[in-house]
């Protein structure tokens, strides 16, 4: 069956490397449907990723694509966007990639408010290397390097992005896939640094170690832990534990870094001389 997605993938790269039941394919579909809705020119789209299962997405899409080093996708993307502001630059990262090794780059990309869209596929675990806990693994859950339960506090990436200065911040899940696609679409279309975190499932690592053996179990779990922003706001602190607010958290207009740099160019050129 051919769908709109076929217009945007490198079919020769399939079958993909992802395990059966992995949420990455759902996110890939959501991204491509959002791009199709926006009717963007494929030649002007650049997709950049880091390292991990989710970062393999860039190999599967028919744009200019760059599968970079672990955690570094955002600074590569920053260089690309600075060099050619006509390009639409999408960055796809996993939770470990973005929040651990790439955490500082994430903060500073948001602080600059550079016109990029960051999509973080959060399966709460390092999947590719075999299920080690990540900064987004919930406290008390298990990983191959947390055999007695995880004692780390987790990040709230959405709140981090808001505090650091992003223009658009939202969270979706692979269960609420239509909503995720529309959040991604809004993020792609937003000038400035836009962030969408998608809560996803890794049945073979996270699921197996946390008593959710099948992909269906995992999706049901995601359905239970995800609550709409409106419901979230009415919950007590205790009730919020283990749950995730889903929806749009921030959508505001702030000057984007590349626009501000254009002003620098005008200023420098107006001052004349070569010194």
């Amino acid at each position, binding site marked *: 069956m051919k769908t709109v997605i076929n217009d945007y993938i*490198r079919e*020769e*790269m399939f079958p993909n490397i992802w395990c059966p039941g992995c949420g990455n394919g759902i996110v890939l579909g959501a991204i491509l449907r959002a791009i199709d809705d926006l009717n963007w020119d*494929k*030649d*002007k789209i*650049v997709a*950049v990723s880091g*390292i991990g299962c989710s970062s393999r997405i*860039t*190999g599967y899409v*028919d*744009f*200019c*694509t*760059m*599968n*970079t*080093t672990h955690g*570094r996708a*955002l*600074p*590569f*993307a*920053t*260089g*690309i*966007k*600075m*060099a*050619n502001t*006509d*390009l639409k630059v999408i960055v796809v990262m996993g939770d470990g990639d973005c929040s651990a090794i790439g955490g*500082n*780059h994430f*903060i*500073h990309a948001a602080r600059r408010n550079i016109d990029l869209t960051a999509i973080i596929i959060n399966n709460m675990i390092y999947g590719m290397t075999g299920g080690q806990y990540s900064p987004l693994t919930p406290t008390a859950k298990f990983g191959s390097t947390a055999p007695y339960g995880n004692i780390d506090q987790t990040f709230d990436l959405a709140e981090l992005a808001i505090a650091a200065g992003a223009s658009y911040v939202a969270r979706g899940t692979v269960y609420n896939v239509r909503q995720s696609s529309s959040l991604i679409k809004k993020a792609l279309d937003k000038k400035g640094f836009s962030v969408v975190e998608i809560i996803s499932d890794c049945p073979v690592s996270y699921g197996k170690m946390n008593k959710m053996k099948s992909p269906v179990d995992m999706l049901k779990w995601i359905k239970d832990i995800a609550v709409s922003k409106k419901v979230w706001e009415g919950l007590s602190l205790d009730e919020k534990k283990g749950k995730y607010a889903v929806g749009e958290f921030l959508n505001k207009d702030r000057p984007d870094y590349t626009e501000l*740099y254009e002003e*620098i*160019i005008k*200023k*420098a*050129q107006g*001052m004349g001389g*070569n*010194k």
Partner: protein
Amino acid sequence: MNNLKKKKNIKLLQGNEACAEGALLAGVKFFAGYPITPSSEIAENMARKLPKIGGKFIQMEDEIASMAAIIGASIAGLKSLTATSGPGMCLKQENFGFAVINEIPCVVVNAQRGGPSTGSPTKPSQGDMMQARWGTHGDHPVIALAPSTVNEILTLTIKAFNFSEKYRTPVILLLDEVIAHMREKVEIPAPEDVEVINRKKPTVPPEEYLPFKPDEDGVPPMANFGEGYRYHVTGLVHSEKGLPISDSQQIDHFIKRINNKIEKNIKDILIYEEYLLDDAKIALIAYGSVARAAERTVKLAREEGLKVGLLKLLTIWPFCSEEVNKLAQQVDLIIVPEMNLGQMVLEVERASQGKCRVVPYGRVDGELINPIEILGKIQEEIKK
């Protein structure tokens, strides 16, 4: 009026300023960096001058990000530069390897200071010679240039950009604290007198383009992102199409191809100067600021009737093994003065294959090597 000679543009420049001037003449349009002594003036010059020509400067959150940003900017079409010193160079190695495996042109300046670690930030050193060659992991090719004067910083910065574009590879410009910070008279060439090489573009339509298929010269044509050629770039070993591969034969072919690309063009890449070597029985081999002292030593030694000459290396990687081997057959003794405990001397020993005596002369106290002490070393060695 026509026979009036063009007025020379002579300036008193600091080494780091000359690097910035050279980069601009070579066509740099993007700089990403992070503050570090003794290279910060390059960033400061770029921040001031790039926007004047419509180029772009960005100060990144760290050295890793700076290296990533210049690679991104280069593949999006802008000639790119970053500058750092030893501690920063360590951090850049990860993405330096990414530029190597994806054949993305860019120039990385390392103004060497004493190491290891924070070391001696304001003292000169040549301790990063081997790091320049082997800093990033895996078998990889490298081009590294080492100027010894402020004027050479300007001309070799232009060369560095030209090599990086011509051979699709990152190029290291290895300065040291002394030449980076000293001021000397520099002749700035007119832009029309500067040879500027730009990356080869594909001549085939997008559907036929293979981003990693080399031409005769071993170098694949490079399309910039956004020019209608959609392709994949990955740090994984990849096919001519740019897609990951795991077949052992293909991996072998790929790794050898990117290494051979530099090796087969070595004659074009090697830059060196011979000084009074014709009748020499003793040769000094030096690079960077030490080569200045060595040149003076040659004059002093000649005054004493000693037949000493100098091979001054401007390209330090790839190493000029053939030239050194020839020299080893001619002379009885090679002395290698360098501001480290003996790094290039290992290459000289390897290249001379036992055909003459090879002796290191090192210094790691953060002081320059002076001509008299090299002369002293010569006198000491000839007594042996």
